């Protein structure tokens, strides 16, 4: 067994394959739960309860939704262009999920590390636009066409600002490889968001705004503005094809957050990676406290539930969370998974901020959207490159 695992060829092929399969298997479930978190947070902001019926506090809602989507009748409009109608969601999902191949989940968990990892993600997202544009066109409906025209214009405009923000980060790192970018932050002992006396926070803010626009989320969700366009480019889609678009959207959110974490927030590293005495409190104490604490907090909630079955399910979830927390106490396992924990934790924070934005900002008008993109973000992005280049040169001496 040991010799089999040592075989270099097998390692070279097997590890990426296993990680790919795990990602493809786990991500749809994760997307479902991101949606549940989103609905719960939005509900909380609007003083509602959110989904409560399926499972305790709506915990099984994503699974019910997934089953519903898979069992729905598959409708293709009579006047739609069938082949492109079929192809468009596939393009979207394929490009969105391919983005995962270059994400460094931790220093040994990644599918592959290429020299131009950041550009691969940019390339995939720029080809991914085609899925949205073609889907709207192939539906042969006014709402869909309007939605996809808007989305095409929006994505092309904000891609420029996004790239300018990325250039700042690449300038600090001096490499395009995702793993190397994190390693450089380790070597320099600082997350790039705080590099150059905090000036790198400007490109991070530009990146965040442009990323929200790139993923078509509120307040930049004009392509699917439900009050005017029904649902934009995916108006005519239903069932499984619709859920492919949906999966692609959440995969995109995950990927742009992961890029932000890798480039600006230290990737898989814990906070203060070079301060030795924080090793135990942050790498062991924090995850244990997070998981076991939230597990313990579930017990009083479970007691309040009236339905005994639901109370039992919630108690089971609580025990599971405490179990996950206790896993972090085993040093061998902790060493393997702590990188993934921090990576996903930081992504979670960024996704959480995106949910806040959705809950608190009204949708922009179309001319405001274009103004923000072309008249604010792009000049600001150029300025940020200029400023960071000069300050960086001066610091290097």
């Amino acid at each position: 067994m040991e010799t089999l695992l040592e075989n270099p060829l097998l390692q070279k092929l097997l590890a990426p394959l296993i990680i790919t399969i795990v990602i493809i298997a786990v991500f749809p479930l994760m997307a479902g739960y991101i949606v549940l978190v989103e609905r719960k947070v939005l509900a909380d902001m609007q003083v509602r309860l959110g989904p409560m019926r399926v499972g305790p506090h709506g915990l099984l809602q994503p699974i019910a939704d997934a089953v519903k989507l898979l069992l729905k009748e598959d409708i293709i409009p009579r006047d739609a262009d069938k082949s492109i109608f079929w192809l468009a969601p596939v393009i979207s999902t394929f490009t969105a999920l391919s983005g995962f191949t270059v994400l460094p989940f931790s220093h040994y968990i990644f599918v592959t590390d290429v020299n131009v990892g950041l550009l691969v993600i940019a390339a995939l997202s720029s080809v991914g636009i085609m899925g949205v544009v073609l889907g709207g066109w192939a539906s042969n409906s006014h709402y869909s066409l309007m939605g996809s025209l808007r989305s095409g214009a929006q994505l092309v405009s904000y891609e420029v600002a996004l790239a300018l923000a990325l250039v700042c980060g690449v300038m600090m790192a001096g490499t395009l490889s995702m793993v190397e970018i994190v390693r450089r932050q380790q070597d320099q002992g600082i997350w790039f968001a705080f590099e150059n006396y905090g000036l790198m926070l400007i490109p991070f803010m530009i990146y965040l705004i442009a990323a929200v626009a790139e993923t078509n989320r509120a307040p930049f969700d004009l392509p699917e503005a439900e009050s005017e366009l029904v649902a934009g480019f995916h108006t005519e889609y239903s069932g499984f094809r619709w859920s492919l678009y949906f999966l692609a959207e959440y995969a995109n959110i995950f990927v742009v957050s992961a890029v932000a974490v890798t480039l600006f927030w230290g990737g898989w590293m814990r906070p203060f990676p070079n301060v030795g005495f924080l090793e135990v409190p942050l790498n062991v104490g924090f995850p244990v406290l997070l998981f076991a604490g939230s597990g313990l907090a579930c017990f009083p909630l479970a007691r309040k539930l009236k339905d005994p079955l639901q109370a039992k399910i919630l108690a089971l979830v609580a025990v599971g969370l405490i179990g996950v927390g206790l896993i972090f106490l085993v040093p061998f396992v902790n060493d393997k998974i702590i990188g993934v924990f921090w990576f996903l934790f930081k992504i979670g924070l960024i996704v959480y901020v995106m949910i806040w934005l959705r809950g608190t900002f009204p949708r922009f008008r179309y001319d405001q959207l274009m103004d923000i993109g072309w008249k604010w973000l792009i000049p600001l992005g150029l300025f940020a490159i200029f400023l960071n280049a000069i300050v960086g040169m001066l610091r290097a001496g």
Partner: protein
Amino acid sequence: MDPILFFIFAAVAVICAISLIVQKHPIKSALSLIGVMGSLAILYLLLGAEFIAAAQLIVYAGAIMVLFVFVIMLLNAGEEKSPARPSWFAKLLGIPLMIALLGILSYVIQRAAPEGSLAFGEYTGGAREVGRALFTTYLLPFEITSVLILIAILGAVVLAKKEL
């Protein structure tokens, strides 16, 4: 492995290029063109030019093709009507002329190719080398191109906004 991948994607590129011409609908032609661009990017990748492959995808398959599709959608270009009967001239000389053109092209390219061929994965130019070449050896053409693009943008603004 490399030669097999080369032949697969070279074949895909040629098939997509033929489909680009044969397709009746402009959107489908545009999709075929994306196929051509994508397979070209993979051919670059096989040579080891990762940066150029990524740039090919971003610029051609991404940005430019989105604009193409965008314009096709805006103009609402429909399916091509069956073309008028080709003239006897085209029928007679079409295929011989095409073969002659291909022959001349391959001859010229063979002549222009530098001595000694490049093996798979041997090209080592990354982002750094391309950037350095652009800003030193090819600085003038690079700047002139950007001025050209600026003029195109100004022209578009003038055309779109009749009164400034």
